């Protein structure tokens, strides 16, 4: 098993190794350096369940979190969202589109050396709050911004 995994890493995406790895159920070999995908959080259909899966029992509303997103998004397929956290020791930033079928869009773990800023583009089915949950020093902080969507992007 170990040998196989080494080959897999060495070839880093070679089609042959991929097939072998997949057959051996080693699809997660890539997680040698990446955190395992948080299945329960990403498959939650309610914001409360996402919050629970992230381990956030209580959320503290914070003005130290800035969400940069348009007030009105004409195309729900690409809504630019940037989150900046000024809370010291920010460990992770999660982006949630509350009315999406699966609300959790992305979760970013920030390591020492990384700045507590992420920017990306998400899909939004309809108008909803975009919520950021920031984990810092084991506590969870949150902020939200409403984005109006004129054409949904989850078709």
């Amino acid at each position, binding site marked *: 098993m170990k040998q196989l995994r080494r080959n897999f890493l060495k070839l*880093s*995406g070679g*089609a042959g190794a*991929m097939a072998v*790895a*997949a057959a051996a159920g080693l*699809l997660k070999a*890539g*997680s040698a*350096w*990446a*955190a395992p*995908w*948080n299945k329960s959080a*990403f498959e939650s259909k309610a914001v409360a369940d996402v919050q629970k899966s992230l381990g956030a029992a209580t959320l503290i509303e914070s003005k130290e979190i800035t969400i940069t997103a348009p007030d009105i998004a004409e195309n729900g*397929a*690409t*809504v*630019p969202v*940037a989150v900046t956290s000024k809370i010291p020791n920010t460990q992770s930033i999660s982006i949630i*589109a509350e009315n*999406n*079928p*699966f609300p*959790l*869009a*992305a*979760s*970013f*773990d*920030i*390591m*020492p*050396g*990384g*700045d507590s*800023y*992420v*920017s*990306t*583009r*998400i*899909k*939004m089915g309809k108008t909803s709050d975009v919520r950021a949950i920031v984990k810092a020093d084991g506590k969870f902080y949150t902020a939200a911004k409403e984005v109006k969507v004129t054409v949904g*992007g*989850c*078709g």
Partner: protein
Amino acid sequence: MADPMKIRATLQGDTADVRILMRHPMETGTRKTSSGVVPLHFIQSVVVQHNGKTVLDAQWSQAISQNPFLGVRVKGAKVGDKISVTWTDNKGDKRTDEVAVSAGS
């Protein structure tokens, strides 16, 4: 093999502003075509490394847009430092690209 990423890393003060554009269909698993539903196919994990040290470990869902954009900032960077980005999708496909930090304007 997946298409290469476009990565730009420019130094601003002591922070590298990294902009990444990946090429990926990011299928939600709900889109229908004449031949049926397009299966779920999306990037699950993105790791950004600065000189071999992980600075950002992201987990994504299918709600990230097609051909995803990611912007991050790396503290304590210098011109010539290596920034590498690796993504892995739910089919096990992956892609790594590397770029050197360039001086900002």
